């Protein structure tokens, strides 16, 4: 095995990853805070009033980032879970477990901000259409993953069971993403896509992108801080943990 590959595997051990995560999370937290400051300033003071929705559209600056994040976190969580199944590394399962609560919160926020946006614009908090329902299923997948892991005492078995659930649930993510194209829905189509130029003012787009990166940084910081807790909990009988705590 060459040196570079060996280095990557070195950090797959919780003992080596614990101090690395401890050095990294404040960096991501700082980046997230600065970007959130810039993003919020753009959301409220730079982005112009929308021609159709007035000031109500400003919900977009939190709704779209948390919705994207709820899907991205799921994919990352499932990828860690899959790696855990394949390589049987302890850290992979811990990372998946650390991401689930943040993903669940983002899915909840997506539904919450969506309801608060839907009420004034569509006249209803909720409709059982494809986009909203599949996002609700995403929230239930996160909660199911967490409940399943919490119900199994042996953490390694909990990781494996959770991994299977997480991987099966991946099918829901493209369904959420393409739901507005595949079915008739109240929900508007994507304002930003990889294939078309965005259908919105440049300052709106930048505000949204910066807020998205801010939430991304926040998620990384929180996941790293949480995985440190999980390492301490699961490895508390190991000598290195006892020495690490003064």
């Amino acid at each position, binding site marked *: 095995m060459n040196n570079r590959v060996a280095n990557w595997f070195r950090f797959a051990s919780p003992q080596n990853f614990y101090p690395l995560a401890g050095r990294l999370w404040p960096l991501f937290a700082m980046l997230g805070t600065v970007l959130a400051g810039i993003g919020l300033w753009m959301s*409220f*003071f730079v982005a*112009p*009033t929308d021609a159709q929705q*007035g*000031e*109500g559209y*400003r*919900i977009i600056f*939190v*709704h779209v980032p*948390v919705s994207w994040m709820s899907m991205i976190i799921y994919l990352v969580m499932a990828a860690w879970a899959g790696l855990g199944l394949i390589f049987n590394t302890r850290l992979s399962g811990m990372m998946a477990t650390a991401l689930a*609560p*943040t993903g669940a*919160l983002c899915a*909840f*926020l997506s539904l*919450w*901000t969506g309801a*608060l*946006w839907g*009420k*004034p614009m569509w006249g209803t908090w909720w409709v059982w259409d494809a986009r909203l329902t599949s996002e609700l299923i995403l929230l239930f997948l996160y909660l199911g993953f967490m409940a399943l892991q919490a119900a199994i005492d042996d953490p390694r078995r909990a990781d494996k069971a959770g991994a299977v659930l997480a991987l099966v649930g991946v099918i829901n993510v493209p369904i959420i993403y393409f739901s507005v194209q595949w079915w008739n829905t109240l929900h508007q189509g994507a304002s930003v896509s990889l294939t078309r130029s965005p259908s919105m003012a440049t300052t709106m787009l930048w505000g949204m992108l910066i807020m998205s990166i801010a939430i991304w940084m*926040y998620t990384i910081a*929180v996941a790293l*801080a*949480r995985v*440190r*807790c999980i390492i*301490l*909990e699961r490895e*508390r*009988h190991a000598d290195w*943990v*006892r020495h690490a*705590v003064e």
Partner: protein
Amino acid sequence: MQWNSAAEFFAMGGYGVYVWGSFGMTVLVFVAEVWLIRRRRAAALQAIRDARLDDAGAR
């Protein structure tokens, strides 16, 4: 800048409840999450210290 006064800013063109309800809940959720992680870490560290004290007592 599109706001002439603080009142106008908070009113959000009549959408105040919806806009601040969205941003407010998001801030609340993230602050709560950070707080819960801090508590979880403190509890994990305490459990390790307790276990070490038990070991020392048993010796």
